[in-house]
């Protein structure tokens, strides 16, 4: 799982505009369990080679409106199950962005990022330095700072950890 502080460098899977939640997590083939069903169908309709070839540490780069559609957080989980450690898109749909924060998948809206990198090139995502670098070509883009409270959710490891901590503070759950 990626984290904000970690500098990640990975192969880019470049996608188009308005990649929706049905393409990310819309079912189809039947896996052995819910997680494998999610994994094997992720982007399959669009890129049949994706789930066979994607490797841990890979990065998804897309155009505008990435993750539009339903509120299903399985859209984020499916990418995580495929090993994707970061998502960068020109713009990101609101609920997908919230879900990626909740599940601590680093996701960044970077206007113009789809023009910065081609499919198969290597991208470095360096949030501490607020920069994204196409390692293949040297092209660079800026990462905007996330609000401190959002960074805190990432640092906790996701919203479930925040829930557990707050339940513990109320004496409902054991201290983490």
């Amino acid at each position, binding site marked *: 799982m990626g984290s904000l502080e970690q500098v990640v460098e990975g192969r880019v899977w470049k996608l188009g505009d*308005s990649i*929706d*939640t*049905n*393409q990310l997590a*819309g*079912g*189809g*083939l039947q896996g052995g369990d819910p997680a494998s069903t999610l994994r094997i*169908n992720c982007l*399959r*309709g*669009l890129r049949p080679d994706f789930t066979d070839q994607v490797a841990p540490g890979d990065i998804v780069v897309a155009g*505008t*409106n990435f993750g*539009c*559609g*339903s*509120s*299903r*957080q399985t859209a*984020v989980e499916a990418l995580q199950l495929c090993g994707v450690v970061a998502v960068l898109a020109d*713009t990101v*749909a*609101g*609920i997908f962005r*919230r*879900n990626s924060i*909740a*599940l601590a998948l680093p996701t960044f809206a970077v206007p113009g990022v789809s023009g910065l990198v081609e499919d198969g090139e290597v991208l470095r995502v360096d949030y501490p330095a607020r920069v994204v670098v196409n390692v293949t070509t040297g092209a660079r883009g800026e990462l905007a700072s996330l*609000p401190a*409270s*959002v960074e805190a959710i990432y640092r906790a490891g*996701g*919203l*479930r950890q*925040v*829930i*557990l901590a*707050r*339940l513990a503070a*109320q004496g*409902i*759950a054991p201290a983490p």
Partner: protein
Amino acid sequence: MAGKTIAEKALSRNSTSGESVAAGDLVDARVDGLLAINYLHVGGTYRQMGFPDGPPTVFDPERVYLMDDHVQPPRSVEVARANRESAGVAARLRLGHYRSEMGIGHQIMLESGYVRPGELVVGNDSHTIAYGAVNAVSTGVGTDEAAYVWAFGDLYFTVPETIKVTLRGERRPYPFAKDVILYLAGRYGDSFAQDHAIEFDGPFCHALDMSSRVTIADHAVEVGATFGIFPFDETTDRFVAASGGDGRSYEPLEADPGAVYATQVEVDCDSVDFQVAKPFRFDNVVPVGEVAGRRIDQARIGSCANGRFEDIEIAARMLRGRRVAPHVRFYVSPASLAVYRQCAQAGLIGDLLEAGVQVDSPGCAICQSPGIVLNEEVCISSTTRNYHGRFGGATCADAEVYLAGPATVTAAAIAGEIVDPRDYLGG
């Protein structure tokens, strides 16, 4: 000081710190209601956090609305088990509004009076945004966020900037609400309101019945909006009074005169033709004439967008004395049991069956995969989305789904191909 938009007012009023907020601020806000659909989801989050028996607490048992809507009747043992656990959790936490029956959660929320004008409501389904129809400030959130709200009753929000959409024109027999929102998407794109609130306004808006307002507010998420809010007026007042609910008081919200808008858009609704969204995007919109002649295999009416009495009445009226084309499977699913009952009492169900329609049970299934559309098939539907694989998953990613209003869908079902519905609508 600048005036406030409806979104700014709602999030200021509910801010846990009591501070007044403006567009761009990040705020922790108390929510007035949580729709939790499918216990499978929130229950799964708690199970993975070490609570196998479900949430250990609830922020307010009267403000969490738990529904089994997407998964009733259950289609797998796993889901059947989750629904059983759902009932157990509702009893243990004494939830005041647990609804296990068939029907779409959003329709049940609205017709039961569970959501009131001006309230800030979230739900773990993107079409929670539909409650903007009754002047609520509502939006979809993820499962873990719903689990968070379930326990604590608050959540972080980025206060959105607001786009004002003024709908002009008089209310004529058509276009229908679906045509208006499809036109808006086609004209401005599927992310034109991304991370923004929309405030709908204008004379056409006030002339719309509640069912039509729900269609438009429901689809605000299809153009990227966080909230899609209608003004409160007599129509809202009558609808809310009739829906009953627990009778709790409410305060409608309207924008201040000096409210600042990111953009203002006007639509002359009288000049809007029947619209169709071609595969595979909500904004891939053309007037119906441009796709006339496309042969269809399947037609659907239903969903939170267009599964109400008013939608089904249009279909029944058009089908009297006519029949569904022999090669077309036409499914109609009332949005809730209450809608079903209303349709049955008005004789509409008989009309549909007589004409060869396959009347399906109420619920969300009509908008998902059951009734799969194969890659070589074509469907026209009044439901919410036409994405790749919407009606069959990744292995049916090339199946074509056209979105349209109930009249255009019904006309296509009769003709066996997409046609201008005017000839079937009568005077």
